[in-house]
């Protein structure tokens, strides 16, 4: 298998669009993406046992076994699940937001962010943090689930630069 050069279009999220990113930190992650080779990708699937709310399975995937602690991984997934549960919570606050929006014929969202969007920003920050502190040093990167339609948490495993022990 010879390496081949080519072009890859990467998604860059710019300010002014829906999500903002810390550009400095992204740079170091992008460096990693550019220099390291992708060994494999694993996908943490959705857990539908509680219904259509966004929850991910805590099952520890075999490919991650020698890369990261089970507890660490479960902690990450658990925190993400809690954050999504917070975003989708149906309670007094969401009713108030819904009614207020309805009364203004939803024009209020031209100037205000929805609660869900606020939590999504929190989630993006948390994932960034986890990537920086825990996953990137171990040669992995978590992709924000919103970029995959909230279907999966995609974890990209990069080759060890030293060992080159690929798949």
């Amino acid at each position, binding site marked *: *298998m010879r390496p081949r050069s080519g*072009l890859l279009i990467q998604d860059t999220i710019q300010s002014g669009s*829906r999500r903002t990113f810390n550009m400095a930190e992204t740079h170091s992650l992008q460096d990693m993406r550019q220099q390291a080779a992708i060994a494999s990708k694993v*996908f943490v699937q959705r857990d539908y046992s509680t219904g259509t709310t966004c929850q991910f399975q805590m099952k520890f995937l075999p490919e991650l076994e020698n890369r990261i602690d089970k507890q660490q991984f479960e902690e990450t997934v658990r925190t993400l699940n809690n954050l999504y549960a917070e975003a989708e919570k149906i309670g007094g606050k969401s009713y108030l937001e819904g*009614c207020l929006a309805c009364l203004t014929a939803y*024009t209020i969202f031209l100037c205000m962010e929805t609660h869900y969007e606020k939590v999504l920003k929190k989630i993006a920050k948390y994932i960034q943090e986890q990537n920086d502190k825990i996953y990137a040093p171990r040669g992995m990167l978590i992709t924000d689930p919103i970029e995959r339609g909230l279907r999966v948490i995609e974890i990209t495993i990069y080759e060890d630069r030293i060992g080159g022990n690929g798949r």
Partner: protein
Amino acid sequence: MSAVMVSKKVLRKWEKLPGKNTFCCDGRVMMARQKGVFYLTLFLIVGTCALFFAFECPYLAVHLSPAIPVFAIILFFFVMATLLRTSFSDPGVLPRALPDEATFIEMEIEAANGNVPAGQRPPPRIRNVQINNQIVKLKYCYTCKIFRPPRASHCGICDNCVERFDHHCPWVGNCVGKRNYRYFYLFTLSLSLLTIYIFTFDIVHVVLRSVDSGFVNTLKDTPGTVLEVVVCFFTLWSVVGLTGFHTYLVSLNQTTNEDIKGSWSGKNRVQNPYSHRNIMKNCCEVLCGPMHPSALDRRGELVELPLAPVPIPASKNNKENPQTTKATAPLISNEHTPDDVKSSIAPELEGGVEVMPSPLENKHPPSEPPTPPPAEPAETTVEPDGAF
């Protein structure tokens, strides 16, 4: 050496999205392709209201109350806002699986199915999940390469999987799904109210005027009234009926799709696992629940970056053109069997990039000079030359 970023034009993600949607205002607006009936809806609403304000309102404001036109304006504004919101927003489209994810799922399916003897059809791709003590079957979508979440369905007209798919409505020119159902419901409700309102005051107006000048003369003076009454009469039956039907669905937390298919009709003791068994709770969840964000980042920019060598099998053909390539799921039409799908996905195992002849016919063509070689027809995009 960018083939994409020519001069000031920025390539945005909506331009490369698969599916049969049309986009306007640089990705801010998302609709289905056929918009004729939507224009008719707009015309009927705006036209009828214009006639009402021209013929009825001057007379009624003076003889009855100035609040009548004011309330009509508020209702009209609400109808238009909810209609446009329903038509222009993303109904909850699920982005298609990228090649890596599609391959991963394929491998899981194969592992689950085991060895199928040659000549036999492989078993249907279904995953069972248990939701609130009910077994729900998740079907595999061959177009989007994903197992559809519960309540999602693939819209053939828009060629997308939509979450909590209700139906595709030609009158609003869009699918109705998780993200825009409440706007759709409020649109039908407010339109019913507006229709009843206009109809009532048309009658009142004709009666009041007839007392003064006689019935025939009234009709001659205000010909618009006749037109309004006719439109409102026919609209009433359909829209009010539709509102009633959707009120029933909302109270049960069901979708039109589930109702038509009889998914929770009670046969075999199957019950709706999503219902809270309480009408108020169901209504609150559907109408006042959280506002889910769009999973399609339509206005995000697509940027090219030079990539360090990736360990992928040598590819002769792809090297020729400095084409814009993107890791995205190839479009494979529904007629393909699972085997075709498998053979075309397998080469992309390494997360390789592939040329995608995006369905450009309905979008602004990006200003990139060298178009990808296998441009249209956009049936299959994969080059089965074992390259990657």
